[in-house]
Structures are given as structure tokens and as C-alpha cells.
């Protein structure tokens, strides 16, 4: 099928089978390998992307579901080389180890702060509980999201 959608701010048109997994389409056709696959079954959250602002698991989506949607992958988060505050905080607070969960974790955090700009630590934990990380023990991830919320706060108020 001819699939048209907005990817990281730019319109794209691709010829694809409608039942192709979105994670494969993004990684293999569109070279967006920041989208990771950890389980292929919707259990780990590594393949998280934002579709029309909502966090979605790209290993459980088929290409046709993207028709006309706005899709953000981790590659589309930084603007002109400037990291998103969540990305910045992940770097600064040591929330990255192997980094394989990081793209999905960052996007889930972005969505979380979008919905709840001043989350408590418990709310952050709840909001990220669909993203598995095997390296960090999550402590520094929660620290980073808390810090990002503080930085985004004044901006959001403007």
C-alpha cells in the first residue's frame, strides 16, 4: 500500500505491505534504528514511539495504522542539535547505561510529562512501569524525569 504519514515533523510516503510491523518499517525502510526491539511482544517497551502524541508499542502496530498519523521516534525529539529536556536530564543524571531501553524510556517520559507536568516520584514510576530496564535499577531514570519536569515547568507556564 501507499502509506502517508508525518514522521518526525516531515511528511513521508512509503510503499509497504499494510501488515508490516511498524518497528520493522521504521528500522529497516526508514533507517530509524533508534527504535529498538527487545521482545517483539509488547512486553518491554523498547520500541515505544509517539503516535499522535500517545505512546505506542511499534512492535504491536501494523503499517496501515500509521496512515495520516503524526509519528515521533527518538530521532525526532532533539531540535537542531538541541536535546529535549528529558534527553538532557537523562545524560546529566546518569540515567543511561547500556542505553537499549533509553529511546523508549525517554519517549514514555516525554508523554508522561505531557500528561502530568508535575509528577511525584511514585507517579513517574507508575508512568514508566511499561518500560523495562535491566541495567539501571531505575533510580537515576526517576531522578532524570523529576529534573526534566522541573525544567519543563517554567516553560509550560509560559
Amino acid at each position, binding site marked *: 500500500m501507499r502509506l502517508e504519514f508525518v514522521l518526525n515533523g516531515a511528511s513521508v510516503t512509503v510503499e509497504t505491505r499494510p501488515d508490516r510491523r511498524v518497528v520493522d518499517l521504521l528500522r529497516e525502510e526508514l533507517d530509524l534504528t533508534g527504535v529498538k526491539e527487545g521482545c517483539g511482544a509488547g512486553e518491554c517497551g523498547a520500541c515505544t514511539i509517539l503516535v499522535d502524541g500517545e505512546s505506542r508499542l511499534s512492535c504491536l502496530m501494523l503499517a496501515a495504522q500509521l496512515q495520516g498519523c503524526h509519528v515521533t521516534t527518538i530521532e525526532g525529539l532533539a531540535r537542531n542539535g538541541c536535546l529535549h529536556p528529558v534527553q538532557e536530564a537523562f545524560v546529566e543524571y546518569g540515567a543511561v547505561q547500556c542505553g537499549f531501553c533509553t*529511546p523508549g524510556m525517554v519517549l514514555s517520559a516525554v508523554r508522561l510529562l505531557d500528561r502530568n507536568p508535575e509528577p511525584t516520584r511514585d507517579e513517574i514510576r507508575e508512568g514508566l512501569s511499561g518500560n523495562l530496564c535491566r541495567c539501571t535499577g*531505575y533510580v537515576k531514570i526517576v531522578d532524570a524525569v523529576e529534573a526534566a519536569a522541573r525544567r519543563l515547568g517554567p516553560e509550560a507556564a509560559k
Partner: protein
Amino acid sequence: MLEVGVPVPRCDARAKVTGEEKYAIDHYADDLLWAGVKRAGIPHGRLVGVDVASARQLPGVHAVLTREDVRGSNRQGIMHKDQPVLAGRKVRHCGDPVALVVAEDRETLGKALDLIRVHVEPLPAVFDPEEALRSDAPSVHESGNILLQATIRAGSGEDAFEACEAVVEGAFEVPMQAHAFLETENGLAWQESDGRIVMIVSTQAPFRDRFEIAHALGIEVSAIRILAPHLGGGFGGKDGATVQCLLALAALHAGGRPVKMWWEREESFTAGYKRHPVLMRYRLGAMADGTLHALYCRLVYDTGPYAHLGGEVMALGMEHAGGPYRIPHTQIEGWCVYTNNPIGGAMRGFGVCQVSFGFERMMDRLAARLGMSRLDLRLMNAVRRGDRNCAGVTLAHSTGMVPCLEALSRHPFWVHRRGWKRRAGPFKRRGVGIAAVFNAIGYGRGLPDSAIARVELTDRGKVRVYSGVADMGQGNASAFVQIAGEILCQDAAHMELVLPDTDRTHPSGSASAGRTTYTYGNALIEACQGLRQKLLHRAALVLMLDETSGLTLLPGRVRHLPSGREVPLELLGRLFPEVDRCAMGQSIMPVTQDVPDTGREFTIGFPHALFSYAAHLACVEVDELTGRTEVLEYVAVTDGGRVVNPDGFHQQVHGGVAQGIGYALMEEVRLDEGKIGNPGLATYIIPTCLDVPDIGSIAAETVEATGPFGMKGVGEVGMNAPLPAIAGGVENAVGWSPDRSPLLAERLLERQGCYPPLKED
């Protein structure tokens, strides 16, 4: 400025948060073929035939390969080569590979694998390691079922129990644990026109991989090039051949086209390595005042059908079986046994995290028997520098067990534990548990733990470190950049890093054994000192100075301090040839000179000279109605020598604790006749961020004089304490001792109604 001892953001963090970092799995190529494996599916049997005819005829199938297509030894394994690349006569576990398919795309690959018919005549199998030890048990190998039997004996061994005034006993069991790294085993390989195989692979041991492939497939080591990008987790599970030999075999039959192999999550569970399940029997004897006197311990490690590092895992477990305590008389017996279960292998805590449960449960039991404080009993017996450990080896290096325990004794969680416990809500029981643990670093005697570092000033004036040790996420690559930056006085903007590549970097061993920063770091210090001398000398020439005194390196330049004149590093980079701008260094980790006359069965890796130490405390709450245990507070005090990067140090502690909490409360590979019942992340549950509390991490810094900037490895020790600390907390809460892990709610609920009234401690 990159300085040792201050928190520095990891050099890989930016590329990882933007998705730019390319892991092995992110490498694709034009004209790509996909390779996959047909597996046995049954735990033990004679392989009668593999019918590949219909798979070969399927359009889009490039090759279907079986045992006959392997020209070398067809055997892989780090110490014992007993594991076939493709099974020929026999299958010994469900994940044994019997055929390899190379196809145009993943769909065709899947169809072809389904078309292969494997004819196996089932053989009686053995799944219980104790059963496997019996003379009438089915033999997994012709040589029998014992991979290694060994004894460590110190003092007068078991005879010393006669003198003991208090003796406690226990039997403990820990299950198989899965690494569950998020990037499953994978690689991309191709054959170049000159016949060389190039492989980009998720591996902890790129240099050793060449030997594995060469031996198994009958090709020259020099005809193999391995590149190891950042790994999406390893934890020991990518130490040893996973996809390597199969993928190289596929590449040899791909007509020069690139081939990708990527194990799906279920295949990773079925075929990948796992932490050994262990059965333990303990007897610990002490004097009435609590002084430890005698230990007897019997350990049975289930290594599955192949050795992998089973013998070495058990050896390390045995060396640590007495805990970080002075026990003058010990007898530690170990059996590492073949079964038809999945393959046991290296995992963070390498045999030690299993026995940590055993010896720390015994310490709690002894404290209860003697009516002593659990912490005081540990403190009075904790090893100090100069003591002999339970293997009879004199501890000649930094030994920070006492400072760790002392820090814990002052911690508010310990000081105020009684009040905290009393604040438990209705139908909740609270308890506080502690554990003292240690973990050797390095390979141990008999296998030189060595690294070769290279550092270069590039022609663009950057300092480039050539790392020979993989970074699976633990951050050693960042530590290397930090160490080189410190010595050469550069900031992050002037540093570059080359990740392991057997053509460009130098053999520096595996990313394992808490050794990477220690061993490569020492080699790197020597290399950086050499480069500094070169750069100062060349700068003196440029500045027409008679001597190098007064010259100092600064970010991007060399300055003559008396005159203020400067030479940009970029200029030195352009003026001098490469050989003039690079330096190398090498190191070998020291080994103990006090080799006890015991444990002779261990050919390599025993004993060790260097250890890291830790004392952990867990505040747990057990729900009386559901049996569920929750860890509410946690603190870890760690002696890893001097801390190079506090961020990296705490990251390692947090990660080890989280995996340890999983091991304590939820993780267990469920086996039914050798088949895994939970081969996915929906059924094999690892901790989410709702299961891990805010972990406190405190450094009890000793100085390890032989370590780079005084450091020791901390990657493993944090894994060893959570299970015993949490078990101690549960016992403290509910009054009975968990002897089997994980501490599942249903296991605690079975004992409901047996909870005695809360005791003060």
C-alpha cells in the same frame, strides 16, 4: 575537564539518548540475507536424521546447513570444548541447534525452518543434578555427568567442628536466572573477497570469539575480524559464543553477501546461557562468643548439557562459600554436574551470588542461636587485610569489609529499624535484613588477566583511546576516556574512542570478572604516560626549548608555563607521523603469592588476590494476606577502592541491586523436563520501576594500591547481597527462614498462620 574522582556524564550517553548509537542489531546492509537456527525441541536424544529437502527447495532459501557442512572441530566452549555448533549425533538440551538456514528475508527464513523435519530418538534424560550424580543416571556425555568435582580445605577442615560450642545447619536452593538483556543475541557477518570473515556482533569477548570460530569451523584466526559495538546489555550472557560460530558458518555459505542473525526473545531464553541453579548444604560452627571456627559446605551446580564456564563458575562460588569472614577451618566440596537442562554460564556474580544466600542465611541463623546482633556477629568475624579467607588465602590487598559494615551500623535505617518496623500498617509485617558479601575481581591464578592499551593523538589534535574491552553498558569505555583525559589533561571535546575491533584495537580480554576498568585502566595509564612524554618532547622541539620542564598539557594544546607560549595539539598532530603520536601500555593483574595446597582440581582461575566488598540493608514489608514481599528501603555500602566516576559507581551498584531484587523476589526460569515454561518477558518477570525502591548507594572507599587511581571493580559485588538481605528481612518480619528463592508470594503464603509474634532485633 575530565578528572578522576568527580562525576562525569558518560561519553556514550548523548548518542544513546538521541538514538544515534549503533548497536550490533542496528547494522543492516544492502543485499542482506537472514540466518536462523532449527533447534532440537527435546532435551535428550539420538539424532537420527535432519530432513532439509523441502526447506532447500523453498524459493528464497539460500542455504540449509547441517553438521556435515562444518569443516572444523564443530566444538565451541571457553575452557572445555564440548558444545557443538550444529548437533551431529546427539542432542543434549531443547535448544541444541540441528540445522542452519540462510534465506532472502525473515518470512522465508521462518517458513524454511518450519519445513525442516528433525528425527530424534529420545533417550532417558536427567534434570535433577543430584540424580545426575547417581551411577545409574542417564549419561549426558560419554565421559559421564561430572564436569568438575573439587574440594577446598583449610586448617583442619571438618574435624574442627568438635571444638565448636554452637553449630547451625541449613540446606538452600537457588534457581536458574536469565540475564534478560534487552538486546538479544545477534550479529551481522560477511565474507570479504580475500576470504576473511568480518563480524559485527553483540559480544563481551571479541578477541576470544575469533578463536572459538577458528577452532569450530576450521579457519585461521587471522581470517576473522570481530567488531564489538556497545552492547544492549550482557551481564555475562554474551561472554562466550552465542551467534558467532553459526553466523560465521552462514557467512561462509552466503557467496559474499552479508548475513544477519538475530535471536528472538524466546530463542534467547531457550538457547542462551543462564545462571546456574545451585543446591547447597551448610554447617557453620562457632565459639560461644561468636568467633567463627569451622565451616562445612557442599555445593551442587547444575551446568546443563555443556561446560561453558561451569567449572570456573563453581570454583569462584567455592572460593567465596565461607563469606567475607575469618573461618580458620573449612571444608568446601563442589560438584558441577551435566544435566539436560538449558546451559549454565557466566552471569554477574558468577557463582558467588548463589553461595552468598547460603553463607548469609547461616550467619543470621548463628546470630539467632547465640542471641547476638546480626551486625555485631558479622563485624567481629569480618575479614581484615592480612587475614586468611575461607580458601586459606592471605588477603594482601585492600579489604574494606569492616568499613562497609561500620557505615551500615551508623545508617538511620539500621539505627531506627525498631521504630520503623512498629509502624507497619494492618496485616503488614516489617523486617530489616542485612548481608555482607564480597566478589573477586579478575580471572584469578593461571589465566593472565591482561590488557593492551593504545592511545593516539590524531592528525586533528584529538586524543583517541583504542579500547580492547567491550562495553556492555557498565561504562568502562567512559572510564577509559576519563582516565586518559585526567592524565593528558583534556576535556571531553578533545577525546575520541574506538570500540573493540580485532583489527584496530589490541587483545585485552573479556568484559567480565569486574576487571575491565582495572586491567585496561592500568594499561591505559602506562600508554597515556608514554604519550604525554612524546607530546611534551615534540612540543619542546616546536617551541625551540632545550628541555621539557615547564611544559604542561592543557585541553587542545601544550603550554610553556614560564613564557606562556603554546603549541596547539592539532599542529603536533599534523607535524608528526602516526608512530610519533601514539603510545601503548600493557598490564597484568597481580595474583596472590599465597597459593594454598587445596583446590588442585581447578586448572585455572583459583585463587584470587583482589576482592570488592559490600554490606547491604533491606527494609521489607510482607503482606500477611497475599504473602507478597515489597522492598521499601534499600541501602548498599560498597568498597570498590577509590571511585573513578561516582556516577558510574552508583550506576553499577543500583543495577546490581535491581537484578538482585529480581533474583530475590520474582526471577526463576521454570523448567519442566528441560523445557522452559516461561520463555518471554510476560512470564519471566524482571523488576519494573514499581518493584525497585530508591536505592541508596554509599562508597566506603579504600585505596587499592595496584588499581588505576586506587580503584577496584564494582560490577558484580552488588548482585550478591540483595537475596540474602531480603531473605533476612523476611525472616525478621515473619519469623521463619526462607531457604529457597525466589521468595514468591505463594511460598510465603503457604506458611501463613505460622508467623510467630514479632521479635525485637
